[in-house]
């Protein structure tokens, strides 16, 4: 049976290529039909916001990558509630259907995977 991976994405979408490069890992897993889940936490939760216009910054846009996740079969998406709260985003609509988790739920989540890759 394939080994499962939890990818923890902690980078903001406009702070360089880190966020995009983390999502590329997820898309590659999808392309190979491997079980990978993504947890957005810390600055990474900002990737999920709507109403963004990255073209203003002439930057690689992660929106297309995010939207491709379900198409590549990467459908287990999670977001850390506390990280949204700290940023005044508790009620904000999110671009993806990610499950909101509190700290205890994240602790349980981590224990379900063979490997964790935090970027």
């Amino acid at each position, binding site marked *: 049976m394939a080994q499962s991976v939890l990818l923890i994405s902690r980078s*903001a979408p*406009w*702070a360089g290529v880190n966020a995009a490069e983390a999502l590329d890992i997820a898309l590659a897993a999808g392309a190979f039909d491997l079980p990978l889940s993504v947890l957005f936490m*810390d*600055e990474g939760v*900002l990737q999920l*916001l*709507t*109403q*963004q*216009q*990255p*073209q*203003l*910054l002439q*930057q690689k846009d992660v929106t297309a990558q995010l939207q491709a996740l379900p198409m590549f079969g990467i459908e287990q998406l999670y977001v850390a509630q506390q990280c949204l709260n*700290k*940023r*005044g*985003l*508790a009620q904000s609509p999110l671009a993806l259907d990610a499950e909101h988790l509190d700290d205890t739920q994240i602790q349980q989540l981590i224990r379900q995977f063979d490997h964790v890759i935090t970027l």
Partner: protein
Amino acid sequence: MTTLHILNTSPTASTQFSSCLRLISAGDAILLTGEAVQALRDGSVGAQALSSTNALCRLYALEDDVQARGIDTTHIGVTVIDYPAFVALCVEHTRVNSWT
């Protein structure tokens, strides 16, 4: 003899905000660029940190960075500026301190 302080990291990701806010003098200005504009989100910890400085110095934010992130700035006392105004701000102050 005032200083323009430029921040570029998120208030929730680095100590740039707390270090800079401790060292500003009356008449100084703070310009938020890049991820530092996250501090303008209503109800965020960054907005709280900034609220104490309003009396002391003027707060500016780079328009491109604010708009790209879809941040509403109507609730906070910030002047949103473009790059020509950024240059003018450098001229207006005696020195520039970029917190990188």
